[in-house]
């Protein structure tokens, strides 16, 4: 057999001799001819966040078409923003979980139990807000930890785990709250800080709750973590291909666990916003919020298969839901058609996701 040549390079086989003449410049090609549809598919694959923006624009057009005057009125914009506030916050937590190819069905009840903990301690038991509030946040993180521990230690599917904790936490809420609602007056007397996120500021004619700014801040922080830190890359990698991520040196169990804790914590923050939004601490407020948050995430273009999606998408997704609801109701249609429209949006969003993914196949 051939031996190493004096230059230290391996001796080439006969057919490889011509390689010396091979070109060394970076390749460039003439654009191949594609149909319009294929181009669109490629473009959406490269810039997936454009989809929700286009849908949002369509929703706005629809609203303007239905009732230009009322839809663009300050009071309507305020209503939409208020509706988006809590769903958006929960959606951010849900995005983290869904990016790892998981799902958190318990995120809504974690939000409620956190608000109930803050409220009962801070308002009824007279615990100082400075202690009651962090305990409420901690409560969310602890329940998130329980979810994460069950998923990583017992290797149970996230859907089943959180379906279980959804029931369990729901029962705990009824038990702990004794089905009592704490009214606004009591909150304002004992712990006004808890309803702070419901206070409004006027920007022009539009009244905006503080909770909306909270949403933007949380979104900015999580966006930064996901896109600019190593941890964020690891979240994507874990959802994308867990075995590859593990072999590449990522502790995927640690990432998974942290994502559920993070989601629980954000749910607790959403619980704070919920108190302001509802104007009370109610064990029955926000029951369907877990599904709404999933809706926002999915319409926002995050893939349920993990590894693809963004916080900006989720924010836009939450806005889309709000805008479509508003447009349908301004059209004078029954509320049931709002639900109908949202259902169609979800199915279209997931179908689109599947279509876009086919580019790389």
């Amino acid at each position: 057999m051939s031996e190493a040549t004096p230059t230290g390079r391996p001796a080439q086989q006969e057919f490889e001799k011509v390689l010396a003449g091979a070109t060394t410049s970076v390749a460039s090609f003439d654009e191949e001819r594609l149909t319009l549809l294929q181009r669109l598919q490629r473009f959406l694959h490269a810039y997936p966040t454009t989809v929700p923006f286009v849908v949002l624009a369509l929703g706005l057009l629809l609203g303007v078409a239905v009732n230009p005057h009322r839809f663009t009125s300050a009071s309507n914009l305020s209503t939409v923003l208020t509706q988006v506030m809590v769903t958006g916050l929960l959606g951010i937590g849900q995005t983290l979980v869904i990016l790892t190819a998981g799902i958190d069905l318990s995120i809504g009840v974690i939000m409620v139990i956190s608000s109930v903990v803050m409220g009962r301690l801070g308002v009824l038991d007279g615990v100082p807000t400075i202690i009651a509030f962090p305990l409420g946040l901690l409560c969310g993180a602890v329940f998130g930890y329980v979810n994460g521990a069950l998923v990583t230690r017992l290797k149970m599917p996230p859907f089943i785990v959180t379906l279980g904790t959804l029931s369990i936490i729901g029962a705990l809420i009824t038990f702990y709250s004794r089905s009592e609602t704490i009214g606004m007056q009591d909150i304002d007397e004992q712990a006004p800080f808890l309803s702070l996120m419901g206070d409004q500021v006027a920007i022009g004619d539009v009244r905006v709750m503080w909770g909306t700014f909270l949403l933007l801040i949380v979104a900015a922080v999580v966006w930064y973590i996901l896109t600019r830190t190593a941890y964020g890359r690891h979240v994507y990698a874990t959802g994308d291909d867990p075995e590859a991520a593990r072999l590449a040196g990522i502790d995927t169990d640690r990432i998974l666990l942290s994502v559920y804790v993070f989601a629980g914590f954000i749910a607790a923050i959403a619980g704070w916003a919920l108190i302001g939004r509802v104007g009370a601490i109610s064990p029955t407020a926000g029951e369907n919020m877990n599904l709404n948050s999933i809706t926002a995430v999915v319409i926002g273009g995050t893939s349920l298969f993990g590894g693809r999606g963004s916080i900006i998408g989720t924010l836009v997704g939450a806005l889309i839901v709000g805008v479509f609801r508003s447009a349908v109701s301004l059209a004078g249609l029954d509320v049931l058609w709002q639900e109908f429209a949202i259902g169609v949006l979800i199915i279209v969003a997931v179908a689109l996701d599947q279509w876009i993914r086919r580019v790389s196949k």
Partner: protein
Amino acid sequence: MSVEPILTCRQLVKRYGRVTALDHCDFDLYPGEILAVIGDNGAGKSTLIKAICGAVIPDSGEIRLGGEVVSFSSPIAAREAGIETVYQTLALSPALSIADNMFLGREPRMPGFMGQWLRATDRGRMARFAREKLNELGLMTIQNIHQPVETLSGGQRQGVAVARAAAFAKRLVIMDEPTAALGVKESRRVLELILDVKKRGLPIILISHNMPHVFEVADRIHIHRLGRRLTVVDPKAVTMSDAVAMMTGAMAPPMQAEAA
């Protein structure tokens, strides 16, 4: 040989249910050498190197690195010990960019406040480094360092995985069929890269089914059969057809080869 091996495995056993992938397998790697591992499909080559790099935990047996007994509980532990691996499955994240993939699990932080307090990764540095390493491999057909790995061809992906391992190895490089999907030119580059790594003084374990490549670069050839080391042969003393005959069980290993 009077030199001590840098890596030894003794009596490694790994079972997957009723399948025995490693059956009391021994393994020796000497400093600075290129050791090829050849064997039939399913002989247990990948399992052997996964046991070495922490991706599977052997049921029993002992692994020594530089004389010390090691038991890596995860690929991270092996990587921290300076062992880099190109897996047969490549272990790349399809949706992440080339640069992200090359630095997965060891992203450099930005200097100053941004890096120290806000933990921002230094994306500029990652992109430059990735570009440089791919150019060294001659992977010029990759146009954009930020494109997701899923948009690359199979061979380009393999190139990325090889570049990653070669760039970061401190102690030893393991390559499980690194040229299986590569073209003629790219395979040649990988062989050159393997010799470059050797010149840096690092030993290499090379699993390959390509006999001409194996006989060209290997210092010794570990023939793996039915989950264990059949023999180790010197590529200068044995012909390709003899090696293949031993590997497939058509020929008994020469007795004196055990000493090689």
